[in-house]
């Protein structure tokens, strides 16, 4: 720490800002001040969520399969080496060009999910807690988080710091799932767009890609659209007056959404940004069930990159359903064409199972499935890495989180969650590494045993800190200890 030179800029910032009232040198030499001042904060956040877990050897307690049963002990997520210098495992192999920007974290539990789920790994509870680490409530047969997910918290705060047209854009590769992990507030799911055409029309409305003067025809169309929205708002306000207090809340929410759309329409002129080009999106129709994800998945990745390049948002999320894709030529069948039932076949294909002879088929099918998902991430990372920003690239100033509701989907394990970070977060993350928070691995890196004191809560605090948000806790109290993870910076 002290070996680094103190730049003139750093000294000036130390004088002017962060630590008024403290002796100058003390403020600069504490680790927090150092971290804050040596690197600018992350500018944008991406959250990829894949449903159904990954190819993991994790049991329900976090300990690893010894190879005698499910998965034959195979782990497709873990790095190829237990060393800190990252060597990519089978699922992550396609990300090799970005090795230096990746951080694989292991040994982190979804403790909010584990502690609250009535049977320690139910789909509903695992999903509702995966990105919220929140207290959860079962309402009827549905489980809801009582707080927002990490992406929404960051989006809301960044929108104040870095005004953009969309606080976040939320997209979806639609397929089988048991409930979204994305929440905007207690019991309120975030909206996701699953159709790239409508997403494009929404996100890029009025974006001309470099033209500085707004088109008069566009302005006229906008004025007419605003008339519709104004008229609808007026109607909702009048309608509301005849309702009970309970029902008024429903209309209030509708009104809030309408006003938010109007606000975006008012701010629809997008300043010319170098590198901003409208992506090419074909006209795709169909409902949630009718999307051809082979086509829509990559388009969603392209939309995310383009939206960042055009400065339209600070935060993007992509929710990937647990598909079973025919286009990947799977050699192992899944009941009902559902990715999750493929995962559950791990039991049959494990040693001693009725389908043990087809283990390789199963593994190949699973690996192709998970690699296709990672391929979407690669597409985004490729785009960000190819976009210059400051002295580096857009990827350098971004922070990407990839996770799921389970580690091993076949047994619904919420321990040793799959966590992949990418991007240097403006320099806040030391990437190209693999960190294992499994305490047992400290002395024996290849141990099958497991013990941790780190949960997703801690990860989310670390992520907030990387954006210069000084939070010390996130989510519920189902933790071993609040605070950030160690060793990331």
């Amino acid at each position: 720490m002290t070996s680094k030179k103190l730049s003139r800029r750093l000294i000036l910032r130390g004088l002017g800002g962060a630590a008024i009232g403290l002796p100058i040198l003390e403020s600069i030499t504490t680790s927090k001040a150092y971290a804050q001042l040596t690197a600018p904060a992350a500018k944008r956040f991406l959250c990829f969520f894949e449903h159904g877990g990954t190819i993991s050897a994790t049991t329900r307690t976090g300990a690893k399969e010894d190879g005698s049963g499910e998965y034959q002990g195979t782990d497709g997520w873990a790095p190829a080496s237990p060393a800190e210098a990252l060597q990519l495992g089978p699922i992550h192999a396609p990300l090799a060009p970005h090795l230096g920007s990746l951080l694989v974290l292991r040994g982190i539990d979804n403790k909010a999910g584990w502690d609250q789920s009535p049977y320690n790994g139910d789909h509903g509870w695992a999903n509702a807690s995966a990105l919220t680490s929140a207290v959860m409530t079962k309402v009827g047969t549905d489980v809801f988080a009582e707080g927002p997910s990490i992406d929404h918290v960051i989006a809301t705060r960044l929108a104040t710091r870095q005004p953009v047209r969309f606080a976040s854009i939320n997209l979806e590769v639609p397929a089988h799932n048991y409930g979204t992990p994305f929440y905007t507030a207690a019991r309120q799911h975030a909206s996701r767009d699953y159709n790239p055409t409508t997403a494009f029309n929404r996100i890029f409305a009025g974006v001309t890609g470099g033209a500085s003067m707004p088109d008069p025809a566009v302005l006229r169309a906008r004025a007419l659209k605003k008339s519709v929205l104004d008229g609808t708002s007026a109607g909702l306000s009048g309608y509301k007056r005849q309702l009970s207090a309970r029902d008024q809340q429903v209309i209030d929410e509708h009104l809030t959404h309408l006003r938010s759309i109007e606000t975006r329409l008012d701010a629809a002129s997008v300043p010319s940004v170098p590198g901003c080009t409208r992506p090419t999106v074909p006209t795709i129709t169909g409902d949630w069930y009718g999307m051809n994800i082979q086509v829509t998945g990559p388009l969603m990745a392209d939309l995310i990159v383009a939206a960042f390049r055009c400065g339209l948002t600070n935060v993007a999320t992509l929710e990937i359903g647990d598909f079973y894709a025919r286009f990947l030529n799977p050699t192992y069948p899944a009941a009902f064409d559902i990715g999750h039932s493929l995962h559950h076949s791990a039991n049959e294909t494990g040693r001693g199972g009725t389908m043990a002879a087809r283990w390789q088929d199963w593994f190949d099918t699973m690996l192709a499935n998970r690699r296709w998902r990672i391929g979407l991430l690669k597409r985004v990372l490729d785009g960000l890495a190819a976009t210059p920003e400051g002295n580096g690239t857009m990827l350098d100033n971004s922070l990407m989180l990839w996770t799921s509701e389970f580690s091993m989907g076949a047994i619904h394990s919420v321990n040793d969650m799959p966590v992949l970070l990418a991007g240097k977060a403006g320099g806040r993350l030391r990437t190209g590494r693999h960190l294992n928070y499994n305490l047992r691995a400290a002395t024996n890196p290849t141990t099958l045993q497991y013990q941790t004191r780190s949960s997703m809560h801690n990860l989310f605090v670390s992520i907030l800190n990387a954006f210069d948000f000084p939070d010390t806790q996130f989510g519920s109290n189902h933790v071993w200890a609040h605070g950030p993870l160690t060793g990331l910076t």
Partner: protein
Amino acid sequence: MRRSILLLVVLTGCEGLIVGDRPGPVVVGDRPSVVSPRPEERPVTSSEPNPCDGATLSVPSSPLRRLTPEQLRNTWTDLLGPAQPIAAIDAFAAPRITELEVERLADAVATIVQRGDHLSLVGCDVAGAGSDACARGFITTLGRRAFRRPLTTEELSWLTGVYTSTRALQVTPAVTFREAIDTVAQVILQAPQVTYLNERGTQPSSPGPTPLTGFERAARLSFFLWNSTPDDALLSAAETGSLDTADGMRAAVERLLASPRARTMVRRFASGWLELDPTPTHVALEKLVKSAARYPFDTPELRVAMRAESEALFERAFFDEGGSFKAVLTSRKAYLNGPLAQLYGVAGPASATTWAWVDLPEQRAGLFTRAAFLTNTAGEEWPSPTRRGTALYRRALGLALPDPPASVDNTPPKPTATTLSVRDRIEVRTQPASCRGCHAVINPLGHTLGHFDAMGQYQANDVGTQNGTPFSVAIDATAEVAAGDLEQTLTGGVELSAALAGSAQASRAMADAWLVRALQRPVGTAEACLQYRARQTLAQTDDMRALLVTLLTSDEALSISGDSP
């Protein structure tokens, strides 16, 4: 078949429409928090306590609710003509609307208005300068149909205000008459008066029950029986007061049921009841994947035909066999085309495009022995007794399954080389004591359908290979069933169907399913009396049409309670 137990877990976790089995008030999803779970088991007696006994009328409350996406689509189509471009509106109508849905709503009506179908309601030249009076005429006409009642003074003033302010917009070139009409049309089509259902009754401020207004009754009738907005005749009936009496309502029910729209509604009800439609946790019948090696005859058209056959069976029972629910459960009549007849092994039409009513072989009776249900509750190669049993338990008997126990080891025992039949494999997997609470009830129900393979063909043996070795083992479809009021040994689908037809539990479940369809929300305690009347009607008449009349014309159905605080 490990997946089955997990699918079961999943199914219990995403229940939407289960109506519990309790005498008296029932709240959906209201189950005990479970330590050692057991399905609800209560004896069904004919002397159900009568929740309508109280001195005051016990009537449902009526919270504001959104039209379902299907209702909204149908409404726009009925207002403006067929084939409205409505794909942007999706099926996830949660009680609270999201921002994306608000935006999709706006986009959808913009697209609809672009088509110009609304212009036929404009009483002057839309390409001309127009007039305020002409605009007002358009607003009044479309507004009455869309809002399901005449506009109030405030509404007329709001909408004419939209028209005038749009025409006054400072843009170049100036806003045309047509553009201002289009704007106001968009506002009307996405107005809360269209997209929400709000019932206040004739005396909204009185604390007790209040009768529904005529227009509210018209909306009840049409959204239930047609799944769409009222037509002009129904609105006129409301206006003249003829819906204010039970007799007037009954006449309206008869008229609406005589329409092809009612047949569509009944067919959709059947598909919904069988869960053939997609949800995020289950793909549609048409998209389920089946093994091409085992079922080489499978085609997309065959799946569509399966659905059509089951819907036709329900429709026939409803409209042509006295609304008989027992006929749904036991009929051997089947509406088949060539490929379906082949699947059932009967002589029938020669081609895929010719259809005929045919008597099925004696192995089959009723909806649960038909290809749609059997295919929908089976895997890629093999049938799933768990899935079938769960569907029967939940849908046919209307009973709720509890959550799995907290301690459940969801790594169940593995079948061995000697457990080959589907039945044996499932029994091995669900052997642990922690599984038996539910599976002892579910599995036997499913086993009775063991002779029907994953696409509903009849088979004598389970035939397959295990780790390269072929096997063929006789199917045992005899099971000791103990679920709800079914407590008997049953062999095969025909006996199962006969037992269901004689089950008071099953009759109540069907009555409840229609009640949920009428309310478009779970049944609450306030609906206890209406629920009781509905169950009694079906139990006494076996006539689903009579049941619908009860749901629409009984005193409880024609009033609502005041707002709860």
